[in-house]
């Protein structure tokens, strides 16, 4: 099993979810995060003082998938999330040793 973790622009979230579902991913978890990278934040002014908001709002998607789904899932994300402009985000893949479905106690791929 692998954990696919993707940082994406918030407004493509629904498309990415649909893309993953089509690729066969049945579950995922989304977190609201703030990103820092090449994409610059914006400038704000408050009561005369200017300041830069460095962090840009992003969504993080995490899906644990069976090994044979990694490729498809990763592609599904990159396709759905690509707008072509800086800040589209990243996909990271890493190993997961074990998965348990809390409700049933199922293990491994069955738990996903």
């Amino acid at each position: 099993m692998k954990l696919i973790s993707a940082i994406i622009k918030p407004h493509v979230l629904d498309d990415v979810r649909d893309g993953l579902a089509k690729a066969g991913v049945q579950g995922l978890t989304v977190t609201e995060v703030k990103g820092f990278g090449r994409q610059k934040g914006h400038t704000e002014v408050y009561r005369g003082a200017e300041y830069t908001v460095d962090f840009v709002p992003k969504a993080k998607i995490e899906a644990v998938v069976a090994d044979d789904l990694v490729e498809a899932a990763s592609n599904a994300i990159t396709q759905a999330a690509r707008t072509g402009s800086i800040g589209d985000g990243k996909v990271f893949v890493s190993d997961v040793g074990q998965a348990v479905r809390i409700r049933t106690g199922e293990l491994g791929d069955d738990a996903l």
Partner: protein
Amino acid sequence: MTNTLSRRVGRYALLLLGLVLLPSAAFAQEVSQEMFTVNNTWMLVATFLVFIMHLGFAALESGLTRAKNTVNILFKNTAIIAIGLLTYAIVGFNLMYPGDFSLGEFFGFAGFGLDPGAEGNTSAYNPGYTYYTDFIFQGMFAATAATIVSGAVAERIKLGSFLVFTTLYVAVIYPIAGSWKWGAGWLDQMGFYDFAGSTLVHSVGGWAALAGVIVLGPRLGKYVDGKVRPVAGHSMPLATIGVFLLWLGWYGFNGGSVLSADPALVSLVFVTTSLAAAAGVIGAMAASWGLQHKPDLSMVLNGSLAGLVGITAGADTVGVASAVVIGLVAGVIVVGSVLLLDRAKLDDPVGAISVHLVCGMWGTLAVGIFSTNPEHAFLTQLIGVLAYGVFCFIAAFVIFFALKASLGLRVDAEEERLGLDVGEHGMEAYGGFQITQA
């Protein structure tokens, strides 16, 4: 300056006539200083009540839109009241109450600025109020028309262009339109009746809202693949505060439109206004529960406003039971209208067109149906409604269109997605709260 005086007479000519029909119409043109003082005091109370409607609009409109556009809406509403009062002082008041018309009975202008004249502070000016009271009460009304537009075009209009529109609309279009009836113009002479402004204020604002919505187009993501995707407001408490403040302000809006503290009329107006609002809530609740299977708070809130807008044209001239019917129908209408406008892909984030334009028309026509005054006729009311529609819609459309062609009317897609707060103001409405950007 008897001119100043006379030019306002037209407005109550009919009203006073109406009073004579009522048992309590004890006061004549000549009133004691005591009566003048209590009348004037009530008119000033009504003035501050209408003032607070601007906070009502600000709260309602920001509550029903997204957090990322909140600073922008609050800014617009703060600017509108400022622009409205100042332009009304400079030109609006004297356009609306020109005294003598210079172009048929369609247009007149009594000159720039304010001048109470010799009698402006006495009951010789008017038994109900001083010149300054007259101005400030009317001035609070004026800004209302522009505020109505603000909600309909929210979340996508450029700040600068909106401010230009507001200035033109409130300084020129609203008062000219108003002069036709309240300024004793042609519609007044025809017998058209609009007690406190179902048409003169609400529809006038509503027509501009409609024009704005058409010229601007819907918000990104609102209509996708032929389906309506709801864009939920960010704070129902804020919206609710807004509606209750508007309802409160309506006691001044309608109650002050009696133009004196006359006990019989003002208390009747309080009752018709309250019951129409209450009936509007019930009407919208029934319609929304029936059609949507769930009772929708935002619809019910709109329903109370619908009832209030509906009763505004005839609050002093319909019976209590009629007021309930008018409100109930308005409450149902507003729900239907919101749904139909969405079908037509006219994107009005706060329901301003449904509340102010549609129910404003309904209320004006309802005078022709329910009025206890036999001189009020459905046909005359219809002519009034249409006349205002043609004039205001065209005027607003032309201004919006000219702005689109010159300054540009709509922010770019990137800014719309990020929110106008950051785009137009470099500022966020909620510091420290985690808010989903979508």
